[in-house]
């Protein structure tokens, strides 16, 4: 398994500002994932972050809006840029680990944009 921490756990932000969310894993992992979960919805994958290469974004998500860094095998950041109320969501990072490379999730960041 993997132990994942995220910072901040929650934040309230003004429209037009940006927020960077940090994700730290207690072991080296190749692939890290960033998900969004809007109120009452399921998880939607934003992008896959691999160390040493550009993140791979899913349809509907772009680098200018959600820039991602992956400086090493235990850490990643997701920035939510130029926020609007529609960005209010829980943002989760996850890694593939464990015996079956099942996904483990961080505790999430609850973002509210006013």
């Amino acid at each position, binding site marked *: 398994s993997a132990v994942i921490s995220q910072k901040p756990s929650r934040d309230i932000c003004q429209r037009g500002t940006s927020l960077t969310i940090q994700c730290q894993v207690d072991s080296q992992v190749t692939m890290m994932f960033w998900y969004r979960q809007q109120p009452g919805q399921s998880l939607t994958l934003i992008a*896959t972050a691999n160390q040493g290469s550009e993140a791979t974004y899913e349809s509907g998500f772009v680098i200018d809006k959600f820039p991602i860094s992956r400086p090493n095998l235990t850490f990643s950041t997701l920035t939510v840029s130029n926020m609007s109320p529609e960005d209010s969501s*829980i943002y*989760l990072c996850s890694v593939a680990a464990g015996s079956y490379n*099942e996904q483990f999730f*961080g505790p999430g960041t*609850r973002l509210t944009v006013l």
Partner: protein
Amino acid sequence: EDKVVQSPLSLVVHEGDTVTLNCSYEVTNFRSLLWYKQEKKAPTFLFMLTSSGIEKKSGRLSSILDKKELFSILNITATQTGDSAVYLCAVEAPGETYKYIFGTGTRLKVLA
């Protein structure tokens, strides 16, 4: 289009009841299906299923996969209030390792 559909969307039962949650999928090149329990923010892993007909069991929870009919069920027996949560089903996305498509979840509420 690849998709994962869960039913029912929500369910209210009383303690001691048995519940069955459903997950059906349409994904090319199926590799695995996972079940998660989400109580507040982070989903916690329950089961990974890759083979048809082999039941996975953990305490009062069990799950089985039918790759012919493209579905899985999650059973919870003798439910307790602590089982109240959203249960998510996820299927590994085709062409990408360890990337999953999540269903919308089933919200279970167990009343004392």
